[in-house]
């Protein structure tokens, strides 16, 4: 198993009482809740944490892209990745954005990723996402075009990386007379591509296609869903005539490690519950604009009304569903080993800072994870 330290860079100083007045930390929460001097402190603290993960021996570090929200302060993840490309030396750098359908010119991603890959000496992992539903409200991008734009932008970027330019690109949404990207990526033919998703058959069919074989990354999902989607990927690969390797299957989730189970639970509780109930808070219309999911998925969700919009959840709800792993090093190691054995993922993205978790607790959890959890699972 390979281990990544993944950061969302939340605005941890958010006044938690915002929810008395506003129904989400996204799109419509006034940015007067944001204080620039606190932001300065947080950004630098979070970069320290990412750089420390390199020192601790994580295989990689990950940054992320979200817009106009308190949940994650990385609207331009390339800024963070650029800093990390210089200040880290060993870890791979995974950019688990860029939300391609939000862009009018996706060639900027081909350029940005090629720059990061070159500066870091080939350590970039190139993430391609559609962004979550809220992003379509904040950017104005049309969610009904989201899938088609994603696929077209992806094809454009891949061709820009792998074909000799200049060539013309004639798509429905993007049309260029001269595609001729300078620089070209350091890794040839191109950096590894990861596809983070909350789970959909369409995405898995596409990512697992034998011409792509991209790493599929399941984010923040119950372990039952994780198992289902990982099995789906393997089946799709078999239909395509190959066997999916563990490096193609990734899982991203929050994890907290302390000396004992009781202490871990006590320390993590307020911070993971802030993550769940404050930072992730969003009405269904914001999360799922029309067209963001396929019609079949939307029908399923409409039938199960209330399933995603239920009331406040606790740390125990998330632990029970396998969406949060929390405990002593032994507990965390055993839990991961069991799940890995059952499900067969080979990339683990640990969100070791979440919600309001302060620096000292984050650092302690990172150290225990790196020293007491990772080593014995490496061979798995």
């Amino acid at each position, binding site marked *: 198993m390979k281990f990544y330290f993944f950061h969302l860079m939340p605005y941890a100083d958010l006044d938690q009482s915002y929810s008395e007045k506003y129904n989400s930390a996204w799109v419509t929460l006034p940015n007067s809740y944001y204080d620039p001097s606190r932001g300065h402190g947080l950004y630098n603290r979070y970069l320290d944490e990412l750089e420390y993960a390199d020192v601790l021996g994580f295989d990689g570090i990950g940054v992320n892209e979200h817009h106009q929200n308190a949940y994650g302060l990385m609207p331009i993840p390339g800024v963070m990745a650029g800093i990390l490309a210089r200040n880290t030396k060993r870890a791979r750098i995974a950019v688990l954005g860029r939300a391609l359908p939000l862009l009018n010119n996706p060639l900027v991603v081909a350029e940005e990723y090629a720059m990061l890959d070159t500066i870091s000496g080939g350590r970039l992992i190139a993430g391609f996402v559609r962004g979550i539903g809220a992003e379509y409200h904040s950017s104005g991008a049309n969610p009904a075009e989201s899938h088609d734009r994603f696929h077209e932008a992806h094809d454009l970027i891949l061709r820009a990386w792998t074909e000799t330019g200049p060539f013309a690109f004639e798509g429905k949404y993007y049309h260029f007379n001269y595609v001729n990207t300078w620089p070209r990526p350091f890794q040839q033919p191109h950096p590894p591509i990861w596809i983070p998703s909350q789970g959909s058959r369409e995405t898995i069919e596409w990512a697992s296609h034998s011409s792509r074989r991209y790493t599929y990354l399941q984010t923040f999902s119950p372990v039952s869903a994780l198992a289902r989607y990982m099995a789906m990927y393997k089946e799709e690969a078999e239909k395509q005539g190959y066997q999916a390797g563990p490096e193609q299957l990734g899982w991203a989730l929050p994890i907290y490690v302390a000396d004992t189970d009781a202490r871990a639970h006590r320390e993590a509780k307020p911070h993971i519950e802030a993550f769940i109930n404050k930072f992730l808070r969003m009405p269904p*219309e914001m999360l799922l604009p029309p067209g963001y999911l396929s019609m079949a998925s939307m029908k399923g969700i409409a039938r199960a009304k209330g399933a995603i919009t239920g009331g406040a959840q606790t740390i125990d709800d998330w632990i029970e569903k396998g969406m949060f792993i929390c405990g002593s090093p032994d507990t965390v190691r055993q839990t991961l080993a069991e799940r890995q054995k059952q499900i067969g993922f080979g990339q683990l993205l640990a969100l070791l800072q979440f919600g309001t978790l302060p620096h000292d607790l984050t650092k302690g959890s990172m150290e225990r994870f790196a020293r007491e959890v990772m080593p014995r699972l490496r061979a798995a």
Partner: protein
Amino acid sequence: MPEVKESTLRVDGCAVSVKRAGQGEPMLFLHGARGASRWLPFMASLAERFDLVVPEHPGYGRSEMPEWLDDVGDLAFFYLDFIKALGLGRVHLVGNSMGGWIAAELAVRSTRDLATLTLVSAAGIHVKGVPKGDIFLWSPETTMRNVFADPKFAEAALATPLSDEEQDLQLRNALATAKLGWQPRLYDPQLRKWLHRIDVPTLLIWGDSDKVFPPAYGEAYRDLIPSARLEIFERCGHLPHVEQAEKFVRTLTGFVAEARR
């Protein structure tokens, strides 16, 4: 009461579901974002006086989503072909909200087959500094409360849960509305430049309490269409044909009679 005939017609390669009832001069009603899967009291009333044709737009309700559908301009051309295919001749064209936008786009292209034009709380233009309601961010309950001025309509609608089939149709309708109107939000920046081309008698009906397109949108349409008259309904929301059905039918019928003279 005239019998409602439901059929599926193929126009421009797209199978569209059409309801039709009544006799007299043809009237084509173009529905709004929530579709026209139900035959409503105002339709029954209009069918007493007109040959009323109510299609579900391509992409909406039980009609197919055609490959060629990208924007409201496509639907304007589609309905020009639809009018020709059905031989509706000199038709009274009525559109509400999204349907009003389609009707306006159709009329700037050609009024040859139009007897009159009626836009009811129509989308299609933007009035700077006058925000529209964010229909895509409203919950179903908020939507109901915002589209009616009189809360008893919202209460009644909310008290009647949608069947699974109706729920699926609403998902299709929402998808089509997003496809056509997400960005620029529910308008075509080019449309206002050409509204002066509309040379048939035009009636605009607006609720004074419309939270989707406030009455300033009706006023802007009135100023942009040379022969347009604006009727503002008091204590009325975004759906005058539902909320004040009798007055709506009376106003529309009176306008048509006047235009005939």
